[in-house]
């Protein structure tokens, strides 16, 4: 009886272990600000004693192309391969995760054996803080500041600010040319709700970072929120 149970477990383990071993399933990449694409390679090895079939590999967005070296999908025990993922970075900045789902053998839909994640860090060249300034309806119509800080090797100058609403007036103050600015926003009144979108134009040499936006909102206060 003991032997039967051992054989049973051995069989179960052999079936369970029919997978590829990836030394890393998460890779972090620090991309330059001007990067249009980022490519990452994930190595793997079949450490089991059975062949493993890569049945499919799915990118999680249309911005990704995924390939497997040599188009090879079946891996004998001990064989290695590489999955390569290339991402279109579009107008991203900050941190973004991109995943590839890898289905092996008979993995059911939605249950891939492996999910490979690439965490891309793209520098934020123009930081607006806070992104939204808020006033309470009926509160004081006081001026508030949105700070604009440039984090680039070259100076970045603000060339203009436009607003979507007449309910606020705004003024741009230069703290340090090419480095730091302040956008001072003042509501004309706070009797009712209002919203403005401020488009901040710059002379940044990288097009995707050139225009930024910030917001001003007059609304009912949220309980517990700091004024």
């Amino acid at each position, binding site marked *: 009886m003991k032997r039967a149970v051992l054989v049973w477990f051995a069989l179960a383990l052999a079936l369970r272990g029919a997978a590829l071993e990836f030394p890393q399933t998460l890779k972090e990449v620090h991309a330059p600000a001007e990067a249009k694409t980022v490519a990452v390679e994930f190595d793997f090895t079949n450490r089991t004693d059975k062949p493993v079939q890569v049945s499919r590999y799915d990118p999680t967005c249309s911005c990704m192309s995924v390939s497997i070296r040599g188009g090879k999908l079946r891996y004998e025990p001990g064989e290695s391969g590489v999955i390569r993922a290339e991402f279109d970075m*579009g107008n991203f900045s900050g941190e973004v995760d991109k995943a590839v789902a890898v289905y092996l053998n008979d993995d059911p839909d939605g249950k891939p054996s492996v999910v490979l994640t690439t965490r891309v860090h793209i520098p934020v060249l123009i930081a607006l803080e806070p992104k939204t300034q808020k006033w309470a309806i009926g509160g004081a119509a006081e001026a508030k500041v949105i700070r604009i800080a440039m984090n680039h090797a070259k100076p970045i100058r603000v060339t203009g600010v436009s607003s979507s609403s007449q309910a606020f007036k705004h003024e741009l103050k230069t703290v340090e040319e090419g480095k730091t600015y302040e956008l001072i926003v003042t509501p004309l009144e706070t009797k009712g709700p209002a919203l403005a979108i401020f488009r901040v134009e710059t002379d940044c040499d990288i097009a995707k970072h050139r225009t930024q936006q910030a*917001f001003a909102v007059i609304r009912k206060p949220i309980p517990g*929120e700091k004024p």
Partner: protein
Amino acid sequence: MKAIVQMAGIATLALAAAGVTWAIKGPPARVLRCEPSQLKPDEVCLEQVPSEGVVWVDARPRKDWVANGLEGSMLWNIDPAEDMQAFEAEAVTRIASTPRVVVYCGDENCGVSRQVAERIRKLDLGAEVSVLHGGWRSLNEAGRVKGSSPGR
């Protein structure tokens, strides 16, 4: 040989027990379960979301949102082909008057909704932003999206 016979015996007993369980209790429930005590800090069960006063954000690809997104939801995904500033502007417009946001993506394994939720928090609107446990699948099973019916 004896071991093989014994293995066959164990398998037969296990199958018989499974068959009896199936006959008495029916097939296994394949619907998504949401246990509030096991949620991640930023997650919420569909049952916990108020029926009104919520901005729903669909973090799936645009074609999926168009095909079967929750009625009244807005789109915000991380597809670089999309205009992120347009997403921001629409989100601020909606959230300014409704500071409760729930983001969903394809299913419980999808990580995009968490990334979108983080981007919404960075708008500094002071909104309560949650990720829907089970994503679109839980909405579908609850009959909340186009072409679905409860319990599917």
